[in-house]
């Protein structure tokens, strides 16, 4: 296992970078992060549409969410290969295509998480804001979302973990991320599948396990801020950072 690491360590970590395209763990993390960042505003939109005062908007958003939840991600990725060039008019790389599919996918899942937090916000908050004469958009921007998005922070980290795992599907369409690199190394060595795949599983495990600890930490921190009276400034700091 040590010799595999010494021979292929850098390629597992960053692919051929900087002499060639980025790959390995670095590409896995970058793809996940980009997908999450792009999915976030989209998910907020989906969540707001799901709770919209306009029935048609609510229904449309529900159809979207049920569609995405009902279709395997792999199928969504294949659809992206077909649809993205049609929409954008240009051929895109496999990496970008997979990111597009992940954004569509996360828009629904993260959107549902945000919707849950939206619905958990006491009704009085919206009523108080509307009673002051603030409209729907002002109320959403200044009263509802700053509160809701802070409570969504742990589930954002959880969605990031899910994304890191889901990017492994990109290996099936030829993106040189971590799983693809491992498959390549396995094909090259032929005789050491146990070592290669144990290494691959361990890499994901360390990454995701660390992230899940981070999510638990955030959750307890937010719970503490909520219950105590000392840390409200921190909530605001986080809210304003978002």
């Amino acid at each position, binding site marked *: 296992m040590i010799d595999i690491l010494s021979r292929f360590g850098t390629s597992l970590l960053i692919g051929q970078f900087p002499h060639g395209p980025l790959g390995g763990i670095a590409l896995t993390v970058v793809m996940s992060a980009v997908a999450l960042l792009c999915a976030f505003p989209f998910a907020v939109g989906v969540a707001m549409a799901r709770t919209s005062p306009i029935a048609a908007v609510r229904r449309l958003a529900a159809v979207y969410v049920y569609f995405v939840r009902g279709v395997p991600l792999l199928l969504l990725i294949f659809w992206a290969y077909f649809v993205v060039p049609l929409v954008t008019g240009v051929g895109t790389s496999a990496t970008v295509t997979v990111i597009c599919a992940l954004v569509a996918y996360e828009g629904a899942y993260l959107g549902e998480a945000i919707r849950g937090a939206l619905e958990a916000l*006491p009704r*009085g*908050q919206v*009523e*108080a*804001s*509307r*009673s*002051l*004469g*603030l*409209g729907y958009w*002002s109320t959403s921007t*200044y*009263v509802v979302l*700053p*509160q809701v998005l*802070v409570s969504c922070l742990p589930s954002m980290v959880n969605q990031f973990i899910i994304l890191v795992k889901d990017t492994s599907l990109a290996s099936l369409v030829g993106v040189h991320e971590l799983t693809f690199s491992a498959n390549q190394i396995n094909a090259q060595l032929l005789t050491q599948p146990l070592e290669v795949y144990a290494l691959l599983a361990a890499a994901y495990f360390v990454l995701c396990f660390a992230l899940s600890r981070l999510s638990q930490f955030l959750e307890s921190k937010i719970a503490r801020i909520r219950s*105590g*009276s000392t840390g*409200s*400034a921190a*909530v*605001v700091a986080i*809210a304003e950072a978002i």
Partner: protein
Amino acid sequence: MIQFSGVEKRYGGYLALRGIDGEVARSEVVVLCGPSGSGKSTLIRTVNRLEAIDKGTIKVEGVDVRDECQNRLRARIGFVFQQFNLFPHISALRNVTLAPVLLGKWPKREARERALHLLNRVGLGSLADRYPSQLSGGQQQRVAIARALAMEPPVMLFDEPTSALDPEMVGEVLAVMKGLARDGMTMVCVTHEMGFAREVADKVWFMAEGKVLERASPTEFFTAPSHPRTRNFLAAIRAA
């Protein structure tokens, strides 16, 4: 100032308001009381359209509430909730400045000063930069009153403003409300504080089962109630 005529409100098959008529004059303080489920909260929530009505009309300063833009209507009606409903993620001061700044009523430069003036009026100028969770219930409700006053509404509606408070904090909130009444604010208060009603109200409306059964001056109301339901209600309150 506020005129109700034939107001009806229905929740599914249940008639919450059954034909309310009445008028609140300028600078008048009206206390709405009655047993729970009598429709008092529903009635004041219809004034700023937190609840839509099914029949009848409500006019505020002569304008039908349904003819006016909802946000403009609400901007000129102050509303104070039982649960305060302060925004927990911003300071007391920002709670006060949020709406007037966003709606262009206050220039941003003057916002802090004006909000401090209002917070001083409710006795909380020194706590302006605290967050709601760092304030007691009574203090939160006073901030909520200052927040409602910031829009300079000619009318203030109070929906059981002291019911969620510990007994020792009721007084400070009532004192602020008394001050408002003295300054000539038009007020409609749903409350169980009969002392407040006796001292401050110009009229007491007694509601039961979605109707206003009795309308009287406080002296009349507490000494010589005409409706048997009112007598029962007062007896029950005194016994408690």
